[in-house]
């Protein structure tokens, strides 16, 4: 390729466009006789009539093509949005038309072609955004718009013919229960871990000996595989419930919410404590000397100097915990602790792919939203002069 073209065409953009064109030939949707059997792949030009397909395919191709110019990042970002909108249009048209006359139990699921195109367009969006590097306010606005638009598309009922939404419609109440339970597990354990971890971190910062004892124990606990940890919590709590008087009345029993919650708290302690210590240590010695010289007490130094300066590092610890807990809470589904994991493991047992997706997709989306939000908070907590360093 001549150099002039090379500098005009974005490398990743070219990769996305070629992969995207290949993905257009993979099965876009699958049609199955019922929810359990494997479906038959349907290519994108066969999912509906030409009047519905042509605008959709043109949209995808335009989106991929707009990703090519390396100089105009906002054009590339727009291209990804055009492409994703076209994908949603194709899904709406395709799922309805495929189900026509296909039988009561027939299911239309998302095919490999759809997933590849979606991944490629999202990567295009991420690539353009990372070059545009929007500030924290812009990023929050983009995140909010993305959530609102996705919610509107879901609520409009345009996609209800897809198998995953059939699974959802069959267990709407269970889905919301699972969602609350999942959030309760992930955020509740975060709050408890922060309440224990921050003071512990402050003490570890002041006392070298305590730190040498606490941090290795916490990293040891973090190493224990999650299934083993959840499994061991069950007999432990059952034993506490049956031996300590009054514990059972307080709800301490072997299975359900509590063992999962406790396991998550234990996993969360290391990132909270270690990052609190690292954050408090991030204050430059000269700054601390100056504060001491001004006659600040130890408590004042902690509150007015070390905590504000260490805040970004401490928040980064909470980001690790939150993302980790949202993922680990899936395993609670195995021990009767509820959450989205219930659907994942039910789906695995019934070999119902769309039920697995009903549990796994919300978990992934929740983790992504939390990670992006926490990244924004970490950046906002950074002192001004460091923000663009």
């Amino acid at each position, binding site marked *: 390729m001549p150099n002039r073209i090379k500098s005009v065409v974005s490398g990743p953009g070219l990769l996305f466009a070629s992969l995207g064109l290949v993905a257009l030939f993979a099965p876009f949707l699958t049609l199955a006789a019922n929810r359990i059997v494997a479906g038959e792949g349907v290519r994108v030009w066969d999912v509906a009539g030409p009047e519905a397909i042509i605008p959709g395919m043109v949209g995808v191709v335009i989106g991929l093509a707009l990703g090519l110019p390396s100089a105009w990042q906002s054009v590339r970002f727009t291209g990804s949005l055009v492409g994703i909108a076209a994908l949603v249009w194709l899904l709406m048209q395709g799922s309805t038309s495929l189900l026509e006359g296909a039988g009561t139990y027939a299911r239309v699921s998302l095919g490999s072609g759809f997933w590849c195109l979606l991944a490629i367009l999202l990567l295009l969006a991420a690539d353009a955004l990372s070059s545009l590097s929007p500030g924290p306010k812009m990023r929050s606005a983009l995140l909010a718009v993305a959530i609102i638009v996705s919610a509107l598309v879901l609520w409009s009922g345009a996609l209800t013919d897809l198998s995953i939404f059939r699974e959802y419609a069959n267990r709407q109440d269970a889905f919301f229960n699972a969602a609350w339970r999942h959030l309760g597990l992930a955020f509740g354990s975060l709050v408890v871990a922060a309440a224990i971890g921050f003071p512990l971190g402050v003490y570890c910062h002041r006392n070298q000996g305590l730190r040498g004892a606490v941090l290795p124990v916490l990293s040891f606990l973090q190493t224990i595989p999650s299934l*083993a940890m959840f499994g061991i919590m069950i007999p432990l709590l059952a034993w506490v419930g049956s031996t300590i008087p009054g514990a059972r009345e307080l709800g301490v029993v072997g299975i359900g919410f509590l063992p999962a919650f406790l396991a998550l708290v234990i996993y969360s302690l290391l990132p909270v404590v270690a990052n609190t210590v690292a954050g408090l240590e991030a204050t430059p010695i000269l700054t601390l000397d100056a504060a001491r010289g001004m006659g600040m007490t130890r408590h004042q130094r902690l509150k007015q100097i070390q905590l504000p300066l260490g805040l970004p590092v401490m928040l980064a610890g909470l980001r690790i915990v939150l993302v980790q807990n949202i993922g680990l809470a899936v395993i609670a589904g195995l021990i009767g602790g509820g959450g989205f994991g219930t659907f994942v493991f039910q789906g695995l047992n019934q070999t119902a792919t769309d039920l697995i997706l009903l549990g796994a997709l919300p978990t992934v989306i929740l983790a992504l939203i939390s990670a992006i939000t926490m990244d924004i908070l970490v950046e906002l907590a950074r002192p001004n002069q460091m923000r663009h360093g």
Partner: protein
Amino acid sequence: MSRANFLRVIVVSLLFALVLQPEWFAPIFEPFTPPGAVVIYDRTSLLSLSLSHLGIVAVASLAAIIVAVLLAILVTRPQGKAFLPLSRTIANMGQTFPPVAVLALAVPMLGFGAGPTLVALFLYGILPIFENTMTGLSTLPPATMEAARGIGLSRRQRLIQVELPLALPLILTGIRLSVVIAIGTATIGSTVAAHTLGEVIIAGLLTNNTSYVLQGGLIVGLFAVLIYDALTQLETHTRKRLGVM
């Protein structure tokens, strides 16, 4: 013998005894067994489960190391520079995907058995190694790089003799993170019929037999802790040798 080494010998012997001679521990596990149930897991040999568990982790991790390091080298070369911001984003966002979700999503594509577990461990294992190798290779001290160029080393020589050795401690940290996650995720692999130690724990959970849960949990936990410790030692050793402690 130092106290740490003494502890290591004890833990290793305990692990061997638990895997090879589980009957020895019957009196300890007895109180956790419901009346009439089997005390020691006997449906499959614990040795074969352990070997298969470690084998799956080893194969997936090895493949992940090769792919991740090669990719990281690629995006830190001048030709691959256009892909650097994108790879940062992928590594950062990809790690927010829960390992269990990756495992569950691999099942529809690959069916049940060791396949989806291997693929999930491989895909998820790439990210921490890739991120750390990329950070290691793109944050080398400029003075050292200048000196390497100054003494006339070619690009390839610089990569092999200077850049990779200097980035090695960070690469090893990535490998440690990735392997420890893999050991844990492989345990959950038994819910999709992979032959791993998770089988023992799941069997215990399904039959309310706490002694199974404890046996499986202890063996996996000890393996994880020992491997974590061994990789940490390796890391400290390389750091010391490089004099960058």
